[in-house]
């Protein structure tokens, strides 16, 4: 309280400064007058009396200074003085100021844009009240640490766990056929199945209508109700408040709109915002997996579980409880839950899990952009050091006049703070530009029919971080020069304008800057080169299949409420009739196209006769469902055995084709053809391997060889399939759109054709343009870093040499040959760059290892990058030493000796 009160009194005093000075003067005069009178009374002469009185009072100015310090906000006063002074002195060198501000702006801008990305992907909390109480539950097996739960498991956990105020479940967002009125052609929108307690347990209350009731997910198929997402409500219903109570059609079933989620809750996922939510109990309308029964099968694991910890319950307690539950599952359902555990993760843990691509890119970008910032700061530090040294004289005068060293350091730091503030402002503008650029690429990054948004934005958190970065960089690049330049020898400092005090410490600082710049920029360039070359290489390697002259159209008969038999019939007729169409050289049906946006399904299996390890129920691989035309149409060679045939019907024995990688792994010595696998477990369905296909790129062009299994459509029915048509000759595949339309019309005029496009178009967007954005970002960081480093390197090295002009002239005057002098100065610069290169190479190798481990599977050292980068750095250094050294050699000794 006391100090608070004093603060306000000081604040008031700050405003009434003049009146107080007056008062103090009066008080001092009065004091001395009274003392003088007293002295006269004891017998001193008036003159002596006053002298004694003044002596006794003490140093008036020092006291006044004390008084002012006590009275006002000395700090603020000094700050205003410092600011004024700093602005004046920065104005004196506008070119340098501009350069420094630009440099910092680039560094800060890059970093704040990256931070907006990292913040959105990693740190931003769930958009619900008290988000930190939410945890994610996952099941764990030998092969995955983050698997979902089945509906039955969810009900058990929800009923038995005591650690939570609500356990909620949701399936992944899925494409759903939506029509606002019955009879209208359905359009694909993103819907999400959630548990009845979803909104309530999250603490999200729809402002319009209501959320689900707990009983609305109890009875399968009873409650056809839907809650709309806020964005969808705005877009599709023009924010119509009368929407509650309306009937809409989802996958051909009527649903009643009961509410709209609040604007503050776009969805729990960072990127994908569902258009609407439906209860889990309506799964029959939405479920994708035709092989499984959602409500009954304990191994139909499609649900993400989120729970709100009870206040006072620790994660450890909840984890212990969950472990017990998982043990119970294992005991009660050994077939489905053998060696399957369960774990609890916080939001942060989920987002930073090692296999998360977002997290990988975030780390890489953050490290790179901080490196750019570091280069920018060392650059500016070098410039400020140079600048501070030309002010040695000024600083010496100030010190001689009695300025405190701390005060001077503060003054110099104020200058760098102003620079950093300006740089920060410009940096925020640059960062914002980068974020806007990202938004223009939104359609490329998320090329999908489901709603998705780039979550990066220049918000309060990013602004705050940029501000902190500015202050940090001000300290980084201002402190060293300030400390050094205030440590001058007064006498020599006063004598000449710019002295070089011999001393190891001083040179050490500048040399360190050169080394830091060289090594950091080398590391940046290595990263940029590595990324660009790796992607380029993966393009050269090819994908393993023919991607030209292909048309793709996706179908989902569930949108028209087809049952399994109708679906099979539809695809059979579709392929048959189009095979006859003119211009069609090949046809194929596949559940997912390779390198598309949807991930492939997994398959669990046991090789027949294989002795499984005791704690393992099965192995897993990735799979696709295709028809008999697939391998031929896609140009994927069958290396051994055969592809699928029309005779592989549902009545025929089950067959599968595996890829070479799979065959090599499980039957390293022999031939996989003729071997058999059992699906799911030792007691599962027997499937015979009839062929081995060449390994291709399945999910990404940078992936390593994957183990892959193909199943025939007739034996493994899937609802949502993509038709692929190869056009004959040099015909544009888009010419085949009309024949497809004609055939579909004869089969079912209401069934929508989804994602009609050429495969090459998808490939360009998905494989080329998306990664290109990442390369562009890393590349521009590398280029910016290199330019800054070169500018800084040149500046510091050239400055170092130019400071030795006098020494060079003396050497020349004493008879040194020009070549000796050149060798002398250039040698020094090259040694520094050499050291920097050595460190940079080490860092570059580390970065390469790091990036290889995170993104690419190829672990080889990229020599070419170093062959280009290292010589160019040496060239710059040679130039930076040569130009000023040559100039110094040409100066006449008489002139140079006077040169300062």
């Amino acid at each position, binding site marked *: 309280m*006391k100090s608070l*009160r*004093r603060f306000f*009194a*000081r604040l008031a*005093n700050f405003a009434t400064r003049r009146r107080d000075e007056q*008062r*103090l003067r*009066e*008080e*001092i005069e*009065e*004091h001395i*007058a*009274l*003392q003088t*009178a*007293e002295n006269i009374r004891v017998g001193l002469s008036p003159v002596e009396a006053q002298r004694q009185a003044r*002596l*006794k*009072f*003490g*140093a*008036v100015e*020092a*006291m006044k200074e*004390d*008084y002012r*310090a*006590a*009275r006002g906000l000395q700090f603020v006063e000094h700050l205003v003085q410092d600011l004024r002074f700093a602005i004046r002195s920065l104005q004196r060198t506008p070119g340098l100021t501009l350069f420094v501000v630009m440099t910092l702006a680039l560094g800060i801008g890059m970093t704040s844009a990256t931070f907006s990305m990292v913040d959105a992907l990693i740190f931003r909390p769930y958009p619900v009240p008290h988000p930190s109480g939410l945890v994610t539950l996952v099941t764990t097996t030998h092969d995955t640490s983050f698997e979902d739960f089945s509906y039955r498991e969810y009900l058990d956990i929800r009923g038995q766990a005591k650690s939570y105020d609500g356990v909620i479940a949701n399936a992944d967002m899925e494409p759903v056929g939506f029509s606002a009125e019955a009879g209208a052609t359905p359009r694909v929108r993103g819907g999400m199945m959630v548990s009845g307690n979803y909104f309530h347990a999250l603490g999200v209350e729809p402002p319009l209508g209501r959320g689900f009731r707990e009983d609305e997910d109890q009875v399968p198929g009873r409650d056809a109700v839907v809650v709309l997402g806020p964005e969808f409500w705005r877009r599709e219903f023009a924010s119509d408040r009368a929407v509650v109570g309306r009937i809409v059609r989802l996958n051909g079933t009527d649903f009643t709109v009961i509410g709209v989620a609040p604007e503050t809750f776009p969805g729990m996922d960072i990127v994908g915002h569902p258009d609407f939510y439906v209860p889990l109990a309506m799964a029959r309308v939405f479920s994708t997996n035709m092989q499984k029964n959602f409500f009954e099968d304990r191994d139909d694991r499609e649900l993400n579980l989120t729970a709100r910890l009870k206040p006072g319950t620790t994660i450890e307690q909840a984890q212990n409880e969950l472990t017990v539950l998982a043990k119970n599952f294992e005991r009660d359902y050994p077939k489905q839950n053998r060696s399957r555990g369960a774990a609890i993760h916080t939001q942060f843990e989920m987002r930073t899990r090692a296999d998360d691509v977002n997290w990988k890119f975030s780390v890489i970008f953050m490290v790179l952009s901080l490196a750019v910032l570091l280069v920018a700061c060392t650059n500016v530090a070098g410039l400020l050091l140079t600048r501070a040294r030309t002010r040695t004289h000024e600083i010496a005068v100030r010190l001689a006049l009695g300025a405190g060293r701390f005060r001077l350091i503060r003054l110099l730091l104020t200058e760098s703070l102003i620079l950093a503030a300006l740089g920060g402002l410009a940096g925020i503008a640059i960062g914002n530009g980068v974020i806007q650029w990202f938004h223009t690429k939104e359609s490329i990054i998320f090329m999908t029919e489901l709603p998705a948004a780039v979550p990066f934005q220049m918000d309060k958190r990013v602004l705050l971080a940029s501000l902190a970065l500015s202050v940090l960089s001000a300290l980084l690049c201002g402190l060293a020069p300030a400390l050094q330049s205030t440590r001058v020898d007064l006498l020599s400092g006063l004598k000449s304008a710019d002295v070089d005090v011999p001393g190891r410490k001083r040179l050490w600082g500048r040399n360190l800057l050169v080394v830091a710049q060289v090594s950091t920029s080398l590391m940046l360039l290595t990263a940029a080169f590595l990324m660009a070359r790796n992607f380029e290489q993966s393009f050269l390697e090819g994908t393993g299949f023919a991607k030209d002259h292909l048309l793709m159209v996706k179908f989902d008969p569930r949108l028209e409420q087809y049952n399994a038999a109708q679906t099979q019939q539809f695809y059979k007729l579709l392929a048959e009739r189009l095979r006859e169409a003119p211009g069609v050289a090949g046809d194929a049906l596949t559940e997912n196209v390779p390198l598309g946006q949807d991930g492939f399904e997994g398959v669990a299996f046991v090789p027949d006769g294989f002795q499984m390890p005791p704690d393992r129920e099965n192995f897993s691989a990735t799979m696709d469902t295709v028809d008999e035309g697939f391998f031929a149409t896609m140009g994927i060679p069958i290396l051994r055995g055969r592809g699928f045939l029309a005779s592989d019907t549902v009545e025929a024995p089950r067959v599968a084709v595996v890829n070479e990688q799979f065959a090599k792994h499980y039957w390293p010595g022999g031939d996989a053809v003729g071997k058999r696998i059992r699906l799911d477990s030792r007691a599962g369905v027997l499937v015979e391997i009839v062929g081995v296909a060449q390994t291709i790129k399945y999910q990404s062009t940078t992936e390593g060889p994957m183990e892959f299994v193909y199943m025939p459509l007739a034996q493994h029915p899937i609802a949502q399939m993509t038709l692929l048509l190869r056009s004959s000759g040099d015909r544009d595949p888009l010419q085949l759109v009309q024949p497809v339309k004609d055939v579909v019309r004869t089969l079912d005029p209401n069934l929508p054709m989804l994602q009609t496009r050429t495969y090459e178009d998808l490939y360009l967007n998905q494989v080329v343009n998306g990664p290109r954005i990442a390369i562009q970002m890393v590349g521009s960081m590398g280029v910016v870093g290199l330019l800054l480093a070169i500018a800084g390197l040149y500046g510091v090295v050239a400055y170092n040499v130019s400071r030795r002009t006098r020494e060079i002239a003396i050497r020349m005057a004493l008879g040194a040959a020009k070549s000796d002098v050149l060798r002398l100065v250039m040698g020094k610069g090259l040694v520094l760059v050499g050291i920097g290169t050595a460190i940079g190479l080490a860092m570059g190798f580390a970065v390469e290892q790091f990036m290889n481990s995170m993104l690419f599977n190829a672990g080889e050292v990229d020599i070419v990058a170093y062959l280009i980068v290292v010589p160019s750095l040496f060239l710059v250094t040679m130039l930076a030493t040569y130009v000023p050294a040559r100039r110094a050699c040409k100066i006449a000794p008489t002139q140079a000796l006077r040169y300062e």
Partner: protein
Amino acid sequence: MGMKQKTDVRQGTLALMVLKTLDVLGPLHGYGIARRIEQISGDLLAVNQGTLYPVLLKLEQEGAIASEWGASENNRRARFYRLTREGRRQLQVETQDWEQTAAIIGRFFEAKAEDLP
């Protein structure tokens, strides 16, 4: 460093002396306070009477004393300081603290090695 610490201690002591003076003598101007302290403490303020004024200001900011213009003995305008209620309270607390500290330190100085168990 050593110098500064010494001043700090003295400023604190000085503040306590000012409070006590005003408590005993009632409202006084700066010179009067200085005289009184000089009389009692001897040479503490013999040289630097001016140091009193920053202390007065600090106390006024803390609300321990208040000041107003009045007329001095020789009828000149002078600033008179008086103790506020807050100041009285502060004096009480600090006097107690001081006595306690003094007593403890005193005992320490008197204690001999053989006194310890």
